[in-house]
């Protein structure tokens, strides 16, 4: 075991050595520095290893042979080991990254850097207050010095402000130290902890001063202007180290010193942290420049750490788990980000579009963004999960709200930035080049992120249950991205097929149904992908990521697994959606709604989790505390995915602009994930011992209004895919409404609609998407008469809309019939009427779809378009076959479904007699009707065909045109603004209230951010004033009263 003292010794020794042996040249000293850092890393990591895998106990290292308080002692415990390892690793990588930048400055830069890292190590390890002060000083001076390696006034100004601020802080610390020494006679922190200072007034002041210094080191909002400028002004490579290493050190300092005050300060720390977390992130929303944004984010993370520290009483033993999770993610991702900024020489967020030129960098950026927002499989995800769970368990609901709000704000700007990187138009002439010594550290960090993420998961037994196989499959696909579409598509399909084959036996009814929808649907939609040429770079990993998430939902037995799957699915679908041509803003709004929904679910689960012995999903079935809130939050979260009215605004754009084969994925399949969630929640509510009928009643109205709204808006769309998107909203409304009925019939209806919507919406989206690929426009009024060119597509759409509209004998009617019975049985007449009325409205947009695209006049430029691609026709007709079977033999599906539902909904109100279905009030037979109508149809058709066999085939302009002749197809085709008359009647229902509301909200956030930003004048004196004022205010808040 190498004693930690050697960390200090080595650093100092080498420092002096470089000073002496400087003649040997820069590179030599540089390499020497790196070696030293390597050694330091080795020492600390050896200790870390010993602590976690050996049975090492934390040991004190005494200097100068005396015991404290005479001498200084260092403590090397597990946490110290961990922290110093982090610092040294970052220091090492930073050294590599900055190698040549230091080199240009001459060897002293290396010395300063070495001393900087060393001082942070000591700050971590020392148990002596004065020593702490000293090394704090050293570190801040070193920092100031290192800031100056970047040329320019900004750097100088930043360094100056920094040195002033830190000297104020450390002087406060010094005074505090003096007070403490005066009252206790010891400078050793352990002694201070033992002798409770807080009893005496002077002691209170001493504690106050010490802690205020530590807090100020954490750059609390708003007294943190000086910190910001460091991040922004200094060289990126170094800002990274500051943001990572210094932050770690100062966090740990606060952590150490907090013991002195006992628990009395926790709340203040928490509040300060909360203010910092939310404030910093709020300001981040307004940022246009990458580095300043990162600076705010770093401060936000510091705030989060303080918050966690302040809430340690809630967390108990999990404190370290949470802290390490957050800290690690922040450290790795943020450092990587800063270094990325250093490589990609793009200042404003928009300019980051250039990162697309090197897809691998985009991958890195994506990794960092998703890690920072706390998506799986990164450590922060698990940390956040544990944090929220523990908070809820101890009733810290307000804190949950705070944390989630802050994280949401953070998500806003990170995803805006990422959206720019992926989609903003790249018309900048400057490019960026990569040097190995700059990229290597980043790659290492990224790898570490994934590995540590995995390890974090394995650390808890909950996490160990999570099935990571699909995720590995995704990573493999990322690696195989260079292959052509055909191969990747085959791999993806085979992979999903095999996975489904293996998972199939383990699934029961409900899960099986959805798994079939997800997996089979996924495979079918993937088949359409064969129609694409080239590489289709980055499509397959994300598609599979989504399916991995979906199947994760199905397999989930624990709440954590469920949430894990949910987040994966969100991430995958986000990437899928943002691939569309003009879909940057829509993808952003989709992501934000999804994140909000996910947080709602998280909160809901955390409430549900209270007082539970188990962590399995079954906790939904007996939520003991605040069931209204828990279910409400859960439902809200799920409804964001089903795009119910009010929170639907992301859907039309996202689905409308997506690629032709992505639309069915995200519409026919993805939306069902939300439905699955809703069902889980409702099952729970049905089992719950509380009366939750009010909740389902509201849910019912939401569903009904969604139907009305979705259908009516669909009628007035000019864009075919947007029309289908709005229709999806309506259909999901049906489903939500049906499930909200909470009777066996209602649920049967719901499942019928789930199956139907899956099939016909997939058919419609696939067909229309394929047509769009052929004719090259979304606008229906630019198409027309295509039945002559693509009859198969026409037949597909015809069957699709017939069954969507619910006309017998196709399966849509099954749903309608069940609906009538369910509604009347339940007694929800008015909601029912709204729903049925919307059914009538649906006809308008369905007819518009087929009329304007396939009927009417063929346009000149489509005179010789070809039939849609065979690769689309295969899945389409497979689904149609399923649709026909379901129409002709509904009992095959509905009967087992009914039995399954009987497990949840006791009353058995539908009776099957062969093909005949009987309810209390009605009767109907699917196959009978099908047969009757079919035969009549056939007979009439044959008769007519015979009687008109000599018919002349005529062309498109051979029509009665009041004695005139049409001039052009474009002027003869009725398509644009087709329902003008209807619009005059129902326009009040089409006012986009939801859009307006959300726009207003966005404005509000931006205004708030813009207003708050004014405090950062960039003026050093102002910043110092902030600090002083902050101290005074804090004084009166904390101990002012008790003195």
């Amino acid at each position, binding site marked *: 075991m190498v004693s930690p003292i050697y960390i200090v010794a080595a650093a100092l020794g080498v420092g002096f050595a470089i000073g002496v042996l400087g003649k040997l040249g820069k590179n030599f000293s540089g390499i020497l520095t790196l070696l030293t850092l390597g050694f330091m890393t080795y020492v600390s990591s050896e200790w870390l290893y010993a602590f976690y895998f050996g049975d090492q106990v934390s040991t004190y290292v005494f200097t100068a042979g005396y015991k404290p308080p005479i001498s200084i002692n260092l403590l090397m415990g597990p946490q110290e080991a961990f922290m110093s390892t982090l610092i040294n690793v970052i220091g090492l990588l930073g050294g590599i990254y900055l190698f040549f930048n230091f080199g240009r400055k001459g060897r002293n830069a290396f010395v300063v850097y070495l001393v900087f890292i060393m001082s942070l190590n000591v700050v971590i390890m020392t148990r002596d207050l004065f020593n702490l002060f000293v090394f704090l000083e050293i570190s801040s001076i070193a920092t100031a010095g290192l800031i100056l390696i970047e040329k320019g006034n900004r750097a100088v100004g930043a360094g100056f402000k920094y040195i002033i601020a830190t000297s104020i802080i450390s002087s406060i610390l010094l005074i505090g130290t003096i007070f403490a020494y005066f009252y206790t006679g010891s400078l050793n922190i352990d002694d201070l902890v033992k002798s409770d200072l807080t009893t005496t007034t002077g002691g209170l002041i001493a504690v106050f001063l010490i802690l205020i210094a530590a807090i100020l080191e954490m750059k609390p909002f708003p007294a943190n202007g000086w910190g910001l400028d460091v991040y922004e002004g200094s060289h990126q490579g170094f800002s990274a180290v500051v943001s990572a290493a210094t932050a770690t050190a100062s966090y740990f300092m606060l952590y150490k010193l907090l013991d002195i005050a006992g628990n009395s300060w926790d709340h203040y720390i928490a509040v300060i942290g909360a203010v910092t977390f939310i404030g910093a992130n709020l300001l981040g929303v307004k940022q246009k420049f990458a580095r300043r944004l990162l600076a705010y984010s770093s401060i936000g993370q510091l705030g989060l750490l303080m918050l966690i520290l302040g809430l340690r009483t809630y967390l108990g033993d999990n404190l370290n788990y949470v802290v390490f999770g957050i800290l690690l993610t922040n450290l790795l991702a943020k450092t990587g980000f800063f270094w990325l900024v250093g490589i990609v020489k793009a200042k404003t967020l928009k300019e980051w579009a250039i990162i697309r030129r090197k897809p691998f960098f985009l991958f890195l950026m994506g990794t960092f963004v998703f890690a920072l927002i706390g998506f799986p499989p990164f450590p922060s995800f698990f940390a956040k999960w544990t944090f929220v769970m523990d908070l809820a368990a101890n009733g810290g609901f307000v804190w949950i709200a705070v944390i989630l709000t802050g994280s949401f704000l953070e998500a806003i700007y990170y995803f805006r930035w990422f959206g720019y990187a992926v989609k903003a138009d790249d018309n900048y002439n400057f490019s960026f080049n990569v040097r190995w010594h700059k990229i290597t550290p980043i790659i290492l960090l990224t790898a570490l992120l994934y590995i540590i993420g995995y390890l974090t998961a394995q650390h808890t037994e909950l996490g160990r249950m999570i099935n990571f196989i699909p995720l590995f499959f995704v990573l493999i696909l990322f690696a195989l991205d260079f292959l052509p579409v055909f191969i990747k598509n085959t791999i993806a399909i085979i992979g999903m097929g095999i996975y489904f084959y293996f998972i199939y036996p383990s699934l029961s009814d409900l899960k099986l149904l959805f798994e079939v929808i997800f997996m089979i649907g996924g495979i079918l939609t993937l088949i359409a992908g064969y129609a694409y040429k080239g590489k289709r770079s980055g499509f397959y990993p994300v598609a599979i990521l989504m399916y991995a998430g979906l199947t994760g939902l199905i397999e989930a037995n624990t709440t954590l697994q469920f949430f894990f799957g949910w987040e994966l699915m969100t991430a995958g679908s986000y990437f899928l959606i943002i691939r569309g041509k003009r879909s940057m803003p829509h993808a952003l709004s989709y992501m934000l709604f999804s994140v909000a929904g996910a947080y709602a679910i998280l909160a809901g689960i955390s409430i549900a989790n209270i007082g539970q012995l188990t962590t399995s999903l079954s906790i939904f079935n007996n939520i003991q505390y605040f069931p209204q809130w828990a279910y409400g939050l859960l439902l809200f979260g799920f409804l964001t995915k089903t795009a119910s009215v009010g929170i639907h605004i992301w859907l039309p754009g996202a689905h409308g602009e997506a690629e032709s084969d992505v639309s069915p994925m995200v519409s026919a399949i993805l939306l069902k994930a939300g439905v699955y969630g809703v069902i889980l929640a409702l099952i729970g509510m049905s089992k719950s011992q509380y009366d939750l009928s009010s909740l389902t009643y509201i849910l019912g109205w939401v569903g009904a209004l969604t139907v009305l709204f979705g259908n009516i808006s669909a009628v007035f769309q000019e864009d075919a895919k947007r029309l289908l998107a709005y229709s999806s909203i309506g259909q999901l409304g049906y489903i939500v409404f049906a499930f909200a009925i909470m009777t066996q019939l209602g649920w049967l209806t719901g499942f019928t609609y789930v199956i139907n919507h899956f099939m016909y919406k997939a058919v419609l989206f696939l067909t229309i998407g394929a047509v769009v690929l*052929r*004719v*090259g*426009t979304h606008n229906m009024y630019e198409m027309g008469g295509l039945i002559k060119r693509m009859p198969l597509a026409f037949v597909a759409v015809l069957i699709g809309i017939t069954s969507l509209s619910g006309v017998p004998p196709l399966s849509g009617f099954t749903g309608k019939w069940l609906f009538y019975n369910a509604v009347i049985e339940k007694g929800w007449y008015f909601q029912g009427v709204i729903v049925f009325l919307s059914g009538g409205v649906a006809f308008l947009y369905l007819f518009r779809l087929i009329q304007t695209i396939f009927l009417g006049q063929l346009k*000149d*430029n*489509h*005179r*010789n*378009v070809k039939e849609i691609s065979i690769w689309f026709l295969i899945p389409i007709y497979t689904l149609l076959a399923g649709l026909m079977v379901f129409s002709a033999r509904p009992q095959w599906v509905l009967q087992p479904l009914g039995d399954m539902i009987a497990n949840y909904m006791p009353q058995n109100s539908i009776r099957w007699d062969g093909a005949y279905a009987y309810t209390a009030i009605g009767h109907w037979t699917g196959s009978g009707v099908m047969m009757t109508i079919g035969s009549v149809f056939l007979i009439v058709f044959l008769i007519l065909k015979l009687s008109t066999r000599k018919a*002349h*085939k*005529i*062309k*498109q*302009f*051979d029509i*009665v045109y009041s*004695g*005139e*002749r*049409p*001039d*052009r*197809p474009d002027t003869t085709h009725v398509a644009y603004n087709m329902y003008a008359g209807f619009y005059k009647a129902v326009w009040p229902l089409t006012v986009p209230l939801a859009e307006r509301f959300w726009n207003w909200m966005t404005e509000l956030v931006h205004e708030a951010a813009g207003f708050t930003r004014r405090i950062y004048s960039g003026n050093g004196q102002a910043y110092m004033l902030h600090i002083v004022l902050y101290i005074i205010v804090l004084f009166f808040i904390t101990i002012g009263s008790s003195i």
Partner: protein
Amino acid sequence: MSELDINDKVKEMLEKSAENAGSKNSEKTFVHPEDEEREVIAPDGSIIKVNPIYDYFSGKKPTEEKPSNGVVEKFLNWARSESIWVLGFGTGCGSIEIPPLMTPRFDAFRFGIQMRPTPRQSNAFIISGYLSVKTLKRVIRSYEQMPSPKYVLALGSCTINGGMYYDSYSTINRLDKYLPVDVYIAGCMPRPEALLAGFMKLKELIKEGKGEKANEYARNFDEYKANQKKIIKDWNMPDYNW
């Protein structure tokens, strides 16, 4: 069959345009802008040539539709004669005589006569009074769009010999040069009674199986068309409008 016609038509158009190029202002020919051959760009970037007359209309010539044999035809003829659906297209001054026909005083409904708004569903065409060249063009298109068997009643002396407009430069003199006429109703203007009498006559003709003028039109199509084109210089339609 139809391809042949089309080729002829295209050749004819080309010749027209050729002579048009070298001709003086006085003997100009008319190719409407919407009939000129144009190029459009397909979604896949390829260029499509669109020749409206060729592409939008089926240029087939009319064919004779032989009556079915014997009793059936007699029976059908009776039905046709008892249900005469008149195309609601007032071509001239005489159309003012048609509304009274439907009003209580005369009430042609009694005889199974009624107006239809679209040629596709009507089998009788009343050319009411003078017929200017412009109107003739529309009349011909509408007539050709009516499904056979179809009948034409020429109302008023203008359709017989030009009537009081015999010397006008813009109205025709003899309808039968352009369309096969079943019944002439002389007078200027004939009163509704006369029109009714005309209908009665038409009924007799149909019952006798003489209402085959549509086939006659098909038989002498070229001759009729030549006459039509002689006076309709800007013929912007296919030869036969289905």
